């Protein structure tokens, strides 16, 4: 595949990538604030995923970077050049959209060649580059097909080839997998990552799918209400969330009432370290991952703060999610399927909490599993 990349010239032109800076971007739609001072820097060749619920501003950020919308304030800097005032067609970005965006009246290779034609590349050269870029995404044999003759996954791969063929400074992916079925989504996700690494292009990937973001990105930025809550490597986002919102949005979280005391939180008799060790003492809610909840190895299931009844077991493949009723709250535990199978619904169990650092939220009401 590297050969195809080199032949297409896609990789050689952009392999170094460029730095992208979004500086204090603001955007309002009437009374709604879509972006509230977003600042984010993408290192050359880095893939950053913006993750967040609908309406959090992630797509707005991407559209401001693409030049498809104008910011109310702030700057967009691509490769050291301030492009804030430039229209979309002058920004040198390649974009793959959530909706299928191939031009229906053109074949796959004509679609890919369109951007090259806009750059006044000669007919023979643009045909050659279009075919080579299609081969890069594994669709060399589909060059003569129209959009309606291809599956959704194939269309998005052609769209990726079209975006890459112009050798843009930045690749923008606006939920390109959300219209695809689960199996194709995973395969295309890996394909996008492979091509992005091959080409070495700086990429901003917008998604509301946390699994997608965590799997594909060098760094993940979690957004809420137009602001970045946290930016960091996927493992950090997952294991050391900076805010309760990040903890609850990324992955499942049990909300367990506890008491903060001296940099630790005591949850139903178990002392857990805190992500924010300077948290003030007092009542709090500890946000505990289901993976940090295990079954205790002893058989003391008669009573105790962590003794309860299994009320449901959801099979997820290699692991299973067990729901345990502790009387006042329910707790989710993610266990190896073999272990979960030994504790069907109705079984009394005693839980144990692994001493992973947890985040605390201050509200103490409504503590249940998330």
């Amino acid at each position, binding site marked *: 595949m590297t050969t195809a990349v080199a032949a297409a010239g896609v990789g050689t032109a952009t392999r170094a990538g460029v730095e992208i800076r979004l500086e204090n971007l603001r955007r309002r739609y009437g009374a709604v604030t879509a972006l509230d001072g977003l600042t984010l820097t993408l290192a050359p060749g880095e893939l950053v995923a913006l993750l967040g619920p609908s309406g959090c501003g992630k797509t707005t950020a991407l559209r401001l970077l693409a030049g498809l919308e104008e910011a109310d304030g702030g700057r967009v800097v691509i490769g050291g050049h301030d492009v804030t005032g430039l229209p979309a067609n*002058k920004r040198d970005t390649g974009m793959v959209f959530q909706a299928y965006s191939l031009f229906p009246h053109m*074949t796959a290779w004509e679609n890919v060649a369109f951007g090259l034609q806009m750059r006044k590349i000669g007919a023979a050269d643009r045909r050659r580059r279009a075919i080579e870029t299609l081969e890069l995404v594994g669709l060399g044999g589909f060059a003569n097909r129209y959009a309606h003759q291809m*599956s959704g996954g194939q269309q998005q791969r052609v769209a990726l080839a079209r975006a890459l063929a112009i050798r843009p400074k930045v690749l923008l992916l606006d939920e390109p997998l959300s219209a695809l079925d689960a199996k194709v989504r995973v395969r295309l996700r890996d394909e996008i990552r492979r091509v992005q690494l091959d080409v070495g292009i700086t990429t901003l990937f917008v998604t509301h799918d946390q699994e997608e973001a965590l799997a594909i990105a060098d760094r993940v930025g979690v957004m809420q209400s137009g602001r970045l809550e946290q930016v960091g490597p996927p493992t950090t986002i997952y294991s050391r969330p900076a805010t309760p919102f990040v903890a609850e949005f990324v992955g499942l979280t049990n909300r367990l009432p506890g008491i903060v005391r001296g940099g630790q939180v005591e949850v139903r008799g178990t002392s857990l370290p805190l992500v924010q060790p300077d948290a003030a003492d007092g009542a709090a809610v500890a946000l505990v991952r289901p993976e940090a909840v295990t079954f205790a190895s002893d058989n003391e299931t008669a009573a105790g703060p962590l003794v309860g009844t299994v009320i449901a077991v959801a099979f997820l493949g290699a692991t299973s999610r067990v729901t345990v009723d502790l009387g006042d709250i329910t707790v989710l535990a993610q266990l190896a399927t073999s272990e979960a199978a030994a504790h069907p619904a109705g079984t009394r169990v005693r839980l144990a909490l692994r001493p992973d650092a947890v985040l605390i939220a201050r509200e103490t009401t409504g503590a249940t599993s998330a």
Partner: protein
Amino acid sequence: MSRNRRLKLQIFRVAVFLVLGAFFLLPIGAMFEFSTRGVTDTAPRTLNAWLTIGQTPDLVAAILASLGLAVLTSLGMLLLLVPTMIWIRLRLPYLTRAMEFLCLLPLTIPAIVLVAGLAPIYLWMNLNINDSILTLAFVYLILVLPFAYRALFTGLAAIDVKTLAEAARSLGANWGTVMLRVIVPNMSVAILNACLLSVAVVLGEFTIANLLNYVNLQVAIALLGRANATVSIAVAVASLLFAFILLVILSFAGRPRARVHLEDTGLPYPGAAGGGLR
């Protein structure tokens, strides 16, 4: 579906087709029959009336004027509506209702009222600018707005204009290229339909031309009918046939173009194998 039911459905379809066919063709057949009658009841059939069409200078001038008006009106309609509708869809969607209202308004205004308003303007134009019949294209442009608007609106609604435009913009296309190279080719059928409707309206228009003292095809047919009924009917049948032929031509022109194969470009055609991600 059972065989019996399928047969009944087929019979129903054929019956509907025959009834509608008779509804449309019988009057035209009767007109054709009338236009080929001899001078007396016993005289043999003749195509004299049809042959006379080409030998009547006023009629030929009226036909050419109507064709010119059809072309001008269609062009004007396309230049006015296509970019405006695309722009409103892309950048000013809140104006959609206002645009629709304006375009459908001519349906509610009787031709006589339109003429009452336009007569002073045409009088001034005749005296100060030009008295050519082709100036009727301005008023015909208003007449065809409702029909053309609906046809174009349907075509625009069938494609994701915003995404296609944004994709083209991100690839480096300016707004002109976006419209001409990306949007218009994908609404070509709607554009052809709008043109066909415009041509049909213009070729069939009588009232306004007559009231403004212009001789277009329909006015010429009416005038000729007073002097030579068979020729006027022959012209009417010919104009219907012309509209029919135009419809057929536009239908074929509206079909997707032939695929451009890489084999034709001289490039090596990649093997059939390729990504199988479906």
